[in-house]
């Protein structure tokens, strides 16, 4: 059952169309992420759900009720802001009690509920401190406790981890997922960080220029990007020029980088025509390297190439290969040998193999 329905929502600031006719259904209990670069409209969409921005057209339904024109204080949902937005003149406990006081709870019930939340986020001993007296991670937890204290139907999170350092951020990833599972509250999460989106979400909507480029589960978004933008925005991706040679049933035959011929399954193959130009996307870690042509699987495409350069990343080494015709191919090889790393040096001849199904065809309309 969809807890949040966004129906054809549009918002324009001056001449700038920030959110362009977006529709999304978010299911109850989901960890849903809006991912995109800055200016893609993700924060505006979130603020429209929160009621801090009014859409020009379209509807927003929460639990089947139209909330499009409700002021923010009347919506049974809360937002965690990028800056945490803790009230500086209130103690930790008073910050957490604020939504309950606004909802006119009894004093005794407020105290009990606040104490429970303080325990949940392990901040009981800090309850009388002021926000400027606690660390960034603790502020984050106060903001979370304050937003969950009256059990909202929906929690909106606007890049909540961007102010934390890298280690703390990784720790908070796990905390957030755990919290979401424990409380069962539906999360709508906004981020520009693809790693965060992939690691946390049950589903991701990739936004660009106010429209949805792709909406799916993280593994599909990553391995089967539908558009050039999605392939490029989420991690490293080889985008090779590809020409349609033939289509039969749900299979499409392609000529990639003017030299490699391969066939892949594609449900949309019937919509392609012979001679059509597009892109073949292939993640760098889907390729294998060897100094000899000794790959054992038969379904692999094998290319002979030359090493242009490499970058040592610790857990892997990224090689840049030259396919000729000014076409580069990036290959991420894991560093799994125990006795240090054996690099393929520059200009050495090399064999690259990949399963054609590991990549997919993007027609040019999606560029």
């Amino acid at each position: 059952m969809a807890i949040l329905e966004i129906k054809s929502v549009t918002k324009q600031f001056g001449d700038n169309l920030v959110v362009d006719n977006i529709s999304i259904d978010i299911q109850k209990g989901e960890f849903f992420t809006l991912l995109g670069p800055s200016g893609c409209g993700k924060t505006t969409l979130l603020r429209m759900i929160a009621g801090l921005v009014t859409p020009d057209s379209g509807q927003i339904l929460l639990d089947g009720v139209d909330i499009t024109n409700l002021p923010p204080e009347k919506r049974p949902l809360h937002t965690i802001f990028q800056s945490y937005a803790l009230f500086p003149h209130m103690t930790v406990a008073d910050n957490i009690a604020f939504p309950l006081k606004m909802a006119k709870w009894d004093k005794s019930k407020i105290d009990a509920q606040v104490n429970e939340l303080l325990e949940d986020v392990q901040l009981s001993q800090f309850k009388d401190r002021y926000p400027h007296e606690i660390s960034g991670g603790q502020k984050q937890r106060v903001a979370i406790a304050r937003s969950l204290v009256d059990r909202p139907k929906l929690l909106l999170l606007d890049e909540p981890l961007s102010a934390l350092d890298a280690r703390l951020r990784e720790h908070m990833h796990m905390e957030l997922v755990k919290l979401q599972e424990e409380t069962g509250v539906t999360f709508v999460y906004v981020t520009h960080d693809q790693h965060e989106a992939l690691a946390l979400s049950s589903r991701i909507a990739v936004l660009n220029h106010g429209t949805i480029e792709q909406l799916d589960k993280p593994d599909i978004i990553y391995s089967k990007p539908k558009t050039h933008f999605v392939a490029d925005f989420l991690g490293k991706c080889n985008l090779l020029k590809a020409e349609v040679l033939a289509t039969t049933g749900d299979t499409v035959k392609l000529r990639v980088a003017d030299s490699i011929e391969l066939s892949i399954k594609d449900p949309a193959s019937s919509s392609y025509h012979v001679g059509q130009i597009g892109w073949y996307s292939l993640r760098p870690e889907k390729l294998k390297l060897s100094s000899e042509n000794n790959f054992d699987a038969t379904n692999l495409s094998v290319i002979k190439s030359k090493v242009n350069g490499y970058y040592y990343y610790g857990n892997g080494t990224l090689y840049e290969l030259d396919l000729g015709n000014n076409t580069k191919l990036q290959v991420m090889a894991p560093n799994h040998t125990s006795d240090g790393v054996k690099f393929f040096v520059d200009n050495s001849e090399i064999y690259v193999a990949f399963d054609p199904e590991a990549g997919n065809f993007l027609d040019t309309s999606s560029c």
Partner: protein
Amino acid sequence: MQTNKMSKVFLFGGIFSFLFLYIPLIVLILYSFNNSKINVGWVGFTLKWYKVLFADKEIIHAGVNSLLIAFTSSSISVVLGTLGGVALHRYKIPLLSALVMVPVAAPELLVGVSLLLFFLMINFTLGYASIILAHTAFSISFVAIAVKSRMFGMDDSIIDAARDLGASPFKAFWLILIPTILPGIIAGGLMAFTLSVDDFVITFFTAGVGSTTLPLAIYSMLKMGVTPEVNAASTIIILFTLCLASIATKLSPQIFK
């Protein structure tokens, strides 16, 4: 080596500028305790000028007037200046920020004369009401500037957060915004109060016949010659100002430090 030299320059420069500011005031204060009718040469310590001062009904009357005027004008300007400061922060209109600075920076003489002309033009009887209006007019700017600077360092999303967590627009203003900018409001209000008590030029132009304030009363005493009673009155004003200024500085360090 170079930085050492430079820091010495700053140290001596700083000491010199403070001496330059405070030697005349220190001399004035010392001579309020001088056992002599004229301000030349130290004769001996006495508190009698303070006794004379507190027995002087006219001075006490003027002092009470000054405090009432300052209290009224700073109260009005705290309300209007706070609203103005919030508006300046929220709607960043460049010309408006400059216009708020004008009453602070403009020569007092011009402000005084223009207020006088304005009151005459609208047939407003000069008196305590006109003094209060005149003081409010320049005090609003000080409060607005103090509030605006306070809001500059503020996280704007706390107002959104308050609404999001169930507060009506009025409650978000009253329970979240006002307490957050309170140091700025108090600092601005104290500045307004101090400036009102101290003001001579603008008060001189806008005061009617018979209405008097402490600075005006001291000025009329000076016409009869500088007696140590004037020193005593001035000493009290200086100490009063110092108290208010240090409270204002403590409350809002980023504005006045």
